[in-house]
C-alpha cells in the first residue's frame, strides 16, 4: 500500500516537473531578463574598482576631463607609489602579518576545537562559553585599554602588537568544533586502537578532512587582518612596520593637491592580495559558509 502511494506520488511529481520544464522553456525570455539584470548588477558593483583602475593610469587633468580611456601616466604613478612612497614596503608588511595571523589562528582554533570535541574534562561548557562570549567583544571597543596594555608590554611599534592579540579566534574554535562533531567517532576510536596520539590523529586524520573549513576560515581571517585599519594606525609609528591600509595615507598627505592617479593605483594594489586569496579559496569559502548555516 505504502509503496503504491509512493509510486503514484512519483508519477505526479514527474508530471509536475515535466509541465514545469515546458513552462520554463516557454519562459525563456524571462531568464534572459535575469541574465540582463545580473549583468547590470555585476557592472554596477564592479564599476568603482574598474574606474579606480582606469584612473590609476591617468593624470589629474585626465580625471577632471572625465576621460574614459586609459591615460599615459601609469609609469609616473607607479614610480610615485612604489618608489617614492614605498607602498610595496607596506604591502610586504601586510602580507607577513596577514599570513602569520591566519596560520596562527588556524592552528590555535584546530587545537581548541579538538579539545572541545575529543576530550572529557570538568567545566567544558563553561570554558566553551568563555571562548564563545568573546564574539561579542569587538577589538575596536577595547582599543583604548588594549593600546595602554600593549604599551605597558613595550610592544608599541612592533609586529607583536599586530599579531599576538589576534591569534585566538572564537569563530575558528566554534567552526572546528562543529565540524569535528560531525566526524564519526569510529575514526578516533580506531586511531586510538592503533596507538595514535591526539596530535597525530589531528594531523593525519582531522586536518585532511577539514580543508573546506580551514579554507573558509583562512579567507575570513586573511581578509580581516589585511583590512585592519584603526589598530595599526594606533600602535605603529613610522613606515618600517606599518600596514598598507594605513600606508595609503602617505599618498594623500604631503602634497599641495590630491593627485588621484597614484592614490587609485595604491588602492587597487592594496586590494589585489585579498582578492587573490578570495578567488583561490572561493569554493572552500562558499561551502564553508553553507556548512555553518544552522539547521
Amino acid at each position: 500500500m505504502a509503496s503504491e502511494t509512493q509510486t503514484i506520488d512519483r508519477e505526479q511529481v514527474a508530471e509536475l516537473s515535466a509541465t514545469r520544464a515546458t513552462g520554463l522553456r516557454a519562459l525563456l525570455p524571462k531568464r534572459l531578463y535575469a541574465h540582463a539584470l545580473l549583468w547590470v548588477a555585476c557592472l554596477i558593483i564592479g564599476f568603482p574598482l574598474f574606474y579606480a583602475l582606469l584612473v590609476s593610469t591617468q593624470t589629474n587633468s585626465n580625471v577632471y576631463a572625465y576621460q574614459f580611456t586609459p591615460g599615459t601616466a601609469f609609469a609616473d604613478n607607479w614610480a610615485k607609489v612604489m618608489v617614492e612612497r614605498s607602498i610595496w614596503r607596506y604591502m610586504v608588511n601586510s602580507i607577513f602579518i596577514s599570513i602569520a595571523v591566519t596560520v596562527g589562528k588556524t592552528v590555535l582554533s584546530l587545537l581548541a576545537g579538538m579539545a572541545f570535541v575529543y576530550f572529557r574534562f570538568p567545566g567544558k561548557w563553561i570554558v566553551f562559553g568563555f571562548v564563545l562570549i568573546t564574539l561579542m567583544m569587538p577589538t575596536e571597543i577595547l582599543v583604548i585599554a588594549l593600546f595602554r596594555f600593549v604599551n605597558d608590554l613595550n610592544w608599541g611599534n612592533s609586529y607583536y602588537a599586530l599579531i599576538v592579540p589576534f591569534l585566538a579566534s572564537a569563530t575558528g574554535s566554534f567552526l572546528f568544533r562543529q565540524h569535528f562533531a560531525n566526524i564519526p567517532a569510529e575514526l578516533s576510536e580506531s586511531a586510538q586502537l592503533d596507538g595514535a596520539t591526539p596530535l597525530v590523529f589531528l594531523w593525519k586524520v582531522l586536518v585532511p578532512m577539514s580543508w573546506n573549513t580551514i579554507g573558509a576560515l583562512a579567507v575570513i581571517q586573511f581578509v580581516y587582518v589585511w583590512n585592519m585599519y584603526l589598530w595599526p594606525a594606533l600602535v605603529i609609528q613610522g613606515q618600517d612596520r606599518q600596514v598598507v591600509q594605513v600606508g595609503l595615507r602617505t599618498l594623500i598627505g604631503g602634497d599641495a593637491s590630491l593627485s588621484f592617479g597614484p592614490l587609485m593605483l595604491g588602492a587597487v594594489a592594496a586590494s589585489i592580495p585579498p582578492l587573490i586569496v578570495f578567488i583561490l579559496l572561493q569554493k572552500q569559502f562558499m561551502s564553508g559558509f553553507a556548512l555553518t548555516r544552522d539547521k
Partner: protein
Amino acid sequence: MDSSVPLLISVVTGAIGAALIAYAFSRAHGNVLIGGAIGAIAGAAAPLIFMLPLNYCTFEAERESIDVAFGLLLIGIALIAVIVPVRWISMRLLGHQSVIARQIVPGAFKGKWTPWLLLAPTLAILVLFLYYPSLDTFRLSTLLARLGARRTAFVCVDNFTRLAQDSGYLNIIGITFFISIAIVVIGLALSLAIANLAYLPIKGASIYRTLLIWPYAISPAVAGIIFLLLFNPTGGLINYVLNGLFGIKIGWLNDPAAAPWAVIMASVWKSLGYNILFYIAGLQNVPKDLLEAAAIDGANAWQRFRRIVIPLLSPITFFLIITNMTYAFFETFGTIDYLTGGGPVNATTTMMYNIYEVGIVNNDLGKGAAQSILLFAMVIGLTVLQFRTTGERVTYGA
C-alpha cells in the same frame, strides 16, 4: 555620604531578589523559604559588582541627581545580571537536572591535562588581550587618565553622566544610528533583490556569484579611497553624471546633509558581497515544493516572495541585521577616516570615530573608555535581541 547607604541598597535589592526567587520556587513547587534565602543573598550581593569598585560614589551628598540616577541604573543592571543566572541554575537543580550537561563523548581520548594544554594558547590570548582590556576599560572609564602620564584621578561616573548632558554627543548617537540603519536597510534590500536573481540555477551562475561577491575582500579603507574619487565635488564621476542628467551638483564631502550619504553608499557597496552571499545560501534552502504548491494555489510571484520567501529568510535577515549593524558601528571607521575624516562639522562622526578622537587624538582615555562601554552595551543589547528573536522564530521546512 551617609554610611547607611550601602546597607539600605543591599536590603532593598536583597528583598527584591528574595521575592523573585521565592516566587519562582513556589511556582516550581520548591521550598519557598530556601528560595527566598538564596534570592536574598544573591540580591544583596548584586550591587557590589559595580558599587565596590565605585565605592558608592554616586550616592555621595554633593553628587548631582543624574549621578544618583545612573547609580540606580547600574544597580538595576547588576541585579538582572545576577538574578537571571541564579534563577536559571536553581530551577535546573530543582528539576533534578544537572547544571552542567552530562558529557557523553564517544571516541574521547584519555588524558586529564591534554585538553587544557590544547586550550592553553587560545585561553591565554583571550584572557590577556580580550578579557583583561575589557575589565580595564571599565576601570579606565572612572578615571581621568592620559597615555604616558602615570598619575590618574578618580572621577566617579562623570565620564558617563557628562555625556547625557552633552548635546553634541547626543547628535553623534543620532548620526551613528542614521548611518547604521541606512546601511542596513539599503544594503539588505539591494542584496536580497540581487540574490533573488543570482540563486537561480542559470547558466554561468557561479561566474555571476564571483562577480557579485568579491567586494567582500575590499577593505573599508579602500572603499573610502575609491569613493573619495567618485564623490569628489569637482572631478568626481557621480556629480558629473548628476550634472549631465539633472543639472545638479552636490557637495558630497563638504555639505553636512550630503556627507553621511557618501559614507552610506561606500559602505553599502563594500558590504554588498557579504550580504548577497548569505542570501544566496538562504534562498537555496527555501523548499521548492512549497513555492510550487503556492503557485498551484494561484499565488503570483510577488505574493510567493512576500508570503513565503521573506518569512523563510527571516533568520538570515536577522543575522545580517546584526552583522551589518556591527559593521556600521565599527568597520566604517576606515571608510570615514579616508572619505570625510568625520566632517564636515562632525556630520559623519560616528560613536566609534568619536572614541578615536576623544580617547586617542585628545588623549582623554577615561572619556574614550566610557564611550566604548556605551557602545559595548549597545552591541550586547543587539546581540541579545538577535538571540531572542531568532530563537523565537519558527523556521518552516528543513
